[in-house]
């Protein structure tokens, strides 16, 4: 049974796969499987396909396997749905003047405090020596060739490393921008998401003991508004996940479930 549910958080996935393990031991009926999965996804809520996808955290791939759940319409083509954010903040390093008003707008106007460490757009870390730091590569930044690279959330459609890694399902797609947003109620401050993001874009608020990430300010990003050099733009979403090199290697073997599609 090739069940593959991506975009779910680790806990849910674990639960699902535990059930799958159990299936192996004592086969259940299709209705039972459907019921159990949906019970995890949306307890007590009526089912619609659209709703399942949304609640799944919006990335559901390898949907052929859903045939067995009676959810596919039987086209025979693997269905890959990636529910991306509607917009994205993109940055132009040649225009960046290194003032970090973007970082401060992010945290002051959203959180009521000034902090570049908490900011969901990240400039300070690249400001002096560039993304490669002091040790390697061409030296950028104020102490190098002057180019300041702004790091921003790529609003990953699939996989969503931070959301996938969260053991509590706290990173969920939210309207109106469909950005993945950290639910503070659910976040336990374990910092797993910080390690999972290949672009190191998750911030941590030690005051609240919660992680936080770019949520596009509900469609009116404060950072874009604050830039005095037009170096930031809020644009319709485009997939940058394959184009912007990661700062750290993606965490390997994030999930066994990926193997089904990514052989």
């Amino acid at each position, binding site marked *: 049974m090739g069940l593959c549910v991506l975009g779910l958080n680790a806990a849910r996935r674990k639960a699902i796969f535990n059930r799958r393990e159990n299936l192996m031991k004592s086969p259940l009926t299709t209705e039972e499987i459907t019921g159990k999965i949906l019970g995890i996804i949306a307890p007590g809520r009526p089912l619609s396909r659209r709703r399942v996808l949304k609640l799944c955290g919006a990335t559901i791939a390898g949907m052929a396997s859903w045939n067995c759940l009676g959810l596919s319409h039987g086209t025979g083509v693997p269905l890959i749905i990636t529910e991306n954010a509607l917009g994205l903040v993109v940055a132009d390093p*040649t*225009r*960046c*003047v*290194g*003032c*970090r*008003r973007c970082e*401060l*707008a992010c*945290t*002051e*106007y*959203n*959180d*009521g*405090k*000034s*902090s*570049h*460490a*908490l900011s969901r757009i990240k400039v*300070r*870390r690249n*400001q*002096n*020596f560039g993304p490669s*730091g*002091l040790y390697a590569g061409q030296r950028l930044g*104020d*102490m190098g*060739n*002057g180019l300041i690279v702004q790091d921003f959330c790529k609003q990953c459609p699939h996989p969503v490393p931070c959301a996938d890694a969260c053991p509590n399902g706290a990173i969920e797609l939210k309207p109106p921008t469909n950005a993945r947003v950290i639910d503070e109620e659910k976040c336990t401050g374990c910092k797993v998401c910080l390690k999972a993001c290949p672009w190191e874009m998750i911030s941590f608020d*030690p*005051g609240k003991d919660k992680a936080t990430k770019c949520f596009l300010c509900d469609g009116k990003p404060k950072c874009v*508004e*604050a*830039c*005095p*050099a*037009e170096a930031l733009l809020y644009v319709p979403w485009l997939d940058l996940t394959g184009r912007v090199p990661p700062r750290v290697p993606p965490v390997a073997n994030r999930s066994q479930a990926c193997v089904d599609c990514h052989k």
Partner: protein
Amino acid sequence: MAQYGGWAGKVLRVDLSTGRITTEDTVEKYRDYVGGTGIGYKVLWDEVGPNVKAFDPENKIIFATGPLAGTSAPCNGRTAITTLWPSCWPKHLVASGHMGGHFAAELKYAGFDGVIVEGRADHPVWLAISDGKAEIRDGRHLWGQGIRRTNYEISREMGAEAAVAAIGQAGENMVPLSVISNSGSHTGAGGAVLGSKNLKAIGVRGTGSIRIAGDKGDWEKAVKHHLSILGANNQHVVPNSPQPWAEYYNPGTRWLAARGRVWGASDPPIDTGTGDPHNLNRIAYRTNSAAFFLGPDAWKNTVRGNGCTACPIRCHTRIKVPAVASKYGISEIGQSTCIRLVLGKRFFKKFPDGPLGQTSIEACMLGMHFADDLGIWDNYGQLQRDFHKCHNEGIFKNKVGAKEYQSYSWDKLERGDPAFLFELLPRIANREGELATALGLGTGFMLERWSIPEAEWKKDHQLNYWKHGHPKHHSHEDAGQCGVVINTQYNRDAQCHSHSNFTRNGLPIEVQKKLAVDLWGSEAAIDPLGEFTPMNAHKAKMAKWSLLRKELHDSIALCNWMGPWSASPLKERGYKGDDSLESLLYSLATGDGKSREELDEVAERIFVLHRALTIRGMGTRDMRTQHDTIPDWVFADEKDRAPFTKGTIRMDKTDIGNAMTMFYRELGWDTATGSPTRDTYKRLGLPEVAEELGKAGLTV
């Protein structure tokens, strides 16, 4: 503390003699002095006696920011460096240096509003401050290194995000004209005091946050309001060329943006555009200090604007001049602002390709290369003027041995070959030889060393020399009597820009006069430049306001090179700025609600404490004749035009006497001596100051 925002909460105290590191509660101990120079003066008053000299271990050097540093309030990247001033002649009196960059914000995020450095280490050390912790580390491997190398080495230990304030060889060698520098080009004088303490650098790394006490929505509105009334550098509110949106233009302003004026060394180039003031997303393109100071050729060299944390103005223009890499073996990148941009070229009388040609730009690059790495201060251009005078009048030849004199390639200097700087600037930093050593002392001590009367210097208008070893800084050429009064008050060149930022803002005099009514009670507060009228009470009010705002800015951490925001580029506001802006930002950030008047009173307390320190340091209450002196050249005119005639900035001696009297009266000071009265000290909450000065016979 918890009830207040803005402040980080602690002031760090580091005793280098004992290695003891302690902290103090900022609000509890220093709230009445806000921060910056306020904390600096308070520490010096309480803890450093009148007979201490700048290089004694008993001297202290206080790095302090303020409650707005590290927030998004525009123009907040300031750190005040307060200490006994090594180039203040004949006695080291209190003064402060002012450093921008990213040090202030990083220090706040690390949990500190200031650092008090005292004592003297027995070997070279540096101070590592990281998220609430401080540690004195061995600095022997850094001693002898330039500022750039030091920055790099410390960043290796602390991480790439560290802000490092360091001295170069000039500071190590206790050359009085030396700086402390952070973030590449952001310098404040006082390097030699750090050198005397064997403290090479302070590295700071902070990942904490500063709480905004007020409602975040209100704060956002306040900041946007501030942004809306910003001009270009020095708060010039009128563009310097005609623009489609602009009612006025004025070729003298620093608002250079225009279509076709391009950051030519950006890859690809960027047009600075028309600069409509309503577009807050293009503020950073308005200013180009390189093009302003180095001439229009520098547009092609412009990489981008750079500057302090949270400042949209970007007055530290970054330029790229590939030729200097091949010709001189220095970095093709340089950045700075104002006087430090032209530090190198000012040693030369002429260049083969003219005053604004490529050679002059190369001289500027060499100047920045050396001054920002060796850590040399040029005493606001006085170093070069002293150099010219001594060279032209044969003083060098007389005072320096023949062998040493001949070791300089004077022919290079004469023909405008920038390579001459290789011979001069490193020698100043390393105290090599009589000539360079004397120059590095600063004017006062140089003249004393060479037995030249200071009066010689005070006669010469070309020198712009004022007193105490330092030159004028925005005096009557920018604001008539108000400028003169301001230049009498400090123990170094007056670092006040409140007055000149207004008079040079580019608006026509009629508009300025309208604004002056609101600010200082009458149109008569200001004159057209070079068309001065006799002194009046409104000019005294303007002088007081200028000085108090300067101290306020240096304490709450706003830039007095930009503020106060007394005018704006907005026609719909009648070009009015907002004189309550400091109060609005301070109150929201800290939660300590203070009106404009209340905050001005705090500023007055700080300013008067500076005055008390000067009185105590000089051991006389007769400031009027002993301290607040005015050089003769102020009262002269090369064409012998009479004061108050059109075209001259010549001042009238009797009128300036009136000006001083009116100014003292405005501040509640004794008009005969220029000393604050006991009542004034008490009114400002400084009764203990009055008492101590009284015991020494220094009050009236």
